[in-house]
């Protein structure tokens, strides 16, 4: 009861003085305020936007993202981020992100959600059939071993490891030569 009474700022004012703008007016929440990422786990990361390659600290706790900010140790960015880099947290958490595989049948006017594994099987089948149909082994006696009827686009936003697997499977494995991305000069 007395404690409760003590928590009424007016009483604090009467007892300890203060014009109502200082500690006497602070709520318990304010007193116990801490940064959101306090004590969170941190992953060392790199900004996904442009080619500068700013270092990022990704704070997370119990499998949830908490915040993303610049990595002060980075010899390139020295902890700074541009507006895009600073928006990385929203990039990963915004409501418009796709989280289910969407499938559109021929001539259909709407998406339908489908199971990931089923989708993988379907894509593998389509790819295999198209390749079987269009693969060229040789032309006037010279080796060709390619298909130009299945193509790939993209890579400059992907990881090196991902690009490596794309080129390895699509070109070295399947003979796809139409492989391209944003990068030019």
């Amino acid at each position, binding site marked *: 009861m007395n404690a409760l009474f003590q928590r009424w700022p007016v009483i604090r004012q009467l007892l300890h003085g203060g014009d109502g703008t200082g500690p006497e007016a602070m709520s318990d929440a304010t007193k116990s305020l801490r940064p959101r990422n306090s004590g969170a786990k941190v992953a060392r990361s790199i900004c996904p936007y442009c080619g500068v390659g700013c270092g990022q600290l990704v704070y997370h706790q119990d499998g949830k993202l908490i915040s993303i900010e610049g990595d002060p140790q980075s010899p390139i960015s020295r902890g700074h981020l541009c507006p895009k880099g600073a928006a990385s947290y929203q990039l990963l958490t915004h409501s418009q992100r796709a989280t289910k595989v969407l499938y559109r049948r021929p001539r259909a006017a709407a998406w339908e959600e489908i199971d990931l594994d089923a989708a993988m099987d379907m*894509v593998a089948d389509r790819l295999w059939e198209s390749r079987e149909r269009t693969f060229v082994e040789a032309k006037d006696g010279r080796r060709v071993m390619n298909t130009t009827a299945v193509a790939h686009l993209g890579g400059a936003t992907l990881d090196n490891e991902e690009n490596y697997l794309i080129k390895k499977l699509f070109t070295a*494995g399947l003979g796809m030569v139409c492989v391209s991305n944003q990068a030019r000069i």
Partner: protein
Amino acid sequence: MPGLGTSFGRGGATTAQQDLANSDAILIMGSSMAENHPVGFQWVMEARNKGAKIIHVDPRFTRTSAMADIWVPLRAGSDIVLLGALIRFVLENKRDFREYVLHYTNAPVILRDDFQDTEDLEGVFSGWNEAQKEYDFETWSYRGAPTVPGAKVHGGHAKDRGGERSRECIYDRDLTLQNPRCVYQVLKRHFQRYTPELVEQECGIPRRIFEELAEAFCSASGPEKTAAICYAVGWTQHSDGVQIIRSAAILQLLLGNIGRPGGGILALRGHASIQGSTDIPTLYDILPGYLPMPYFDGDSGSLEGYLKRHTTACGWWSNFEKYAVSLLKAYYGDRATQDNDFGFDWLPRVTGDHSHLGYWLEMDKGNVEGLFVMGQNPAVGAPNSGLERKALAKLKWLVVRDMVETETASFWLDSPEISSGQLRTSEIDTEVFLFPAAGHAEKNGSFTNTQRLLQFHEIAVHPPGDARSETWFMYHLGRRLKEKARANPSPRNAGLNALTWDYPVEGPVAEPDAEAVLKEINGWTTADRKLLSSYRDLKADGSTASGCWIYTGVFPAPNENKARRREPKGRYGHGWGFAWPSDRHILYNRASARPDGQPWSEKKKLVWWDAEKNEWTGYDVPDFTKNKPPDYHPPADAKNDDALAGDKPFIMHPDGFGWIWVPSGLKDGPLPTHYEPLETPLKNRLYPRHATDPGANKLENPENPYANSPDPRFPYVLTTYRLTEHHTAGGMSRYLSHLAELQPELFCEISPELAGELDIHNGDFVTIVTARSSIDARSLVTARVRPIQVDGRVIHQVGLPYHWGYKGLVKGDVVNDLIAISEEPNVRIMETKALLCNVFRRENGRDPQKYSRDGEREIPEASAESEAA
């Protein structure tokens, strides 16, 4: 990267962003660095605060210009005139760094007598074949260098673009530079007409300003000073983009600014791994490490022919075979043996132009069945995107992987073609799959940034729902396909059956271990899988495997992923990530020392010869054979790197020189030449008979038409660009409220003068029309855009940022609908920075009924107005 690749040997930025802080002058051209690379720009600001002169050349006054000491507006597409004039300024006023030029460049090398210059042939070099629209570049070789008849330049990104017809390690030099056939004299003559007057007439740059620019840049070069050049797609996205970069390379070589602290050429990349995706390419014409793809024609019938063709007698590329074989071993593992040429024959052959733009036109013809799009959004980001979207409707199936539902994924649902009735959803047979992708903090992997630095990003949280990494997608797709192949061991499946695909997976979703992939990229001994620490350990006998030789050393030991290192030390932060090759941050840094191995100056020392230790040492890892003394002279029978003397810093080149002159490897000439854009309001006053780059491919067709040059219907010059607040095609910015609100609507920047002529008020809706299409935008009438006075005429320029589309929180018309699909000869990039357009004011706000692109009705009268100007 032929611009940098042919000039210096490697297709990558020669310097590091941090090193800009050491510059005495920085020329930013073809880039708005402050806007598109703000954090990198902090190093420019640091240089500025130390007193460096910042020069920005740009048609518009941008946020970069606002930080520069000198802003030089020029007519879009006249870059080579300005750079050529700077080169002429250096030569005429003897401002070149003579000792550097004599020893480190091929300026003194004597050329063949039968070479003829554009000055002799009205715009083309000798060897031009008008019928074939391509060069036979035999006459470009050094005098006395034997040549291999019959081979052909394929252009593209490969280390040499298939160009070893000549043996550039054989040459005569004239160290007095007086011989009229030496590169120096030929260069001087080539640019003799690129005068300040020409600059005034063609670029619209007043003479005084040109002189101030030239003075500022040259006076910041020499033994005691260095100047750097930064560029981005403002240079590359031109029909002669490679040659613009070549001009910069020549300028920097003449001024001795390559391989030295505060010097260099910094190519600024627009994506997190643009550099990485050419090093480890998802491109059609190269294999990892800039090894060329086998071509159907040429000598790629067999491994032997392939190696013979691409292996040089001297210089680093004499190791070609080691890298090629090690890659094949990485791909095909144990099944790749001496007897089967390490599976070389399983590799597909390049049979044509399989670049994005090339195959997309095939797609438009219905010749492509299926397409994978991963982290790219061509429906917004690609040129003539209207055509690109329509081509998508001709596919049997389309797989899109992205973090959001992009315009590309939903082209069949709400594209402009649907609303305009050109496409009908109910008639589009394309099957579409949209796979949710993981974000950067939801997977392990490495990016290679703009300065060739590999940086690993760790997984923090698992991706939401069914979102997965591309690593996961490719691995599990490959697993399924390999099962199908196992069931059907036909010759065409031999490669797939041989393909090694045994990556460990972990976790509930069976995510492949990205580091296992990086280890394969790094390379190992095939016998006991011992990780390699340098590409010097790679062998041609199949005893080593490496997925990308230039990355070897990134993972030298099982628990030592150098891309993951986070202990920066020293001036360049060695110990943070891994810079290819061999953690060298400033390439060709041997050139930072005099021929005798000592620094040019105390102020600009970087790497020098330590006589006691008998090795090269300094602030960076020497880009040179560590124990090769400066006075080393190769014996006559020396091969590969040993054939290069101790004062030849450009070790990738067979002659060890920086190439002012490119004897082989470029499809459009050994020297840069001013060609007008494919759409231009002016005649080419230098070369009336060859106004545009002879090698450029317009891919003109009814769906991809061009304006005439000039064209009264399209009197204004249009240039497109990016904004700080958005990212390329918008998939990573238009869906985020915190970014979308900062630039919520498509606008076009026009000068008050043009606005006055067209009675356009700030904020009015305007329609921008090109030969391809027309779009609506708000007008931002600003004095930051100025009419350029060229040739006694006023040329109005119009600026358009291109980030908007029909999805996301903020929508807008697709600017790339206006752009033509065209191909620069060497890398097949489109021209987005200079084309022709017209502008109209919308009478009543937005009008769904667009101006037809060939609607004669209103266009002529508008042009009449502009003629009056």
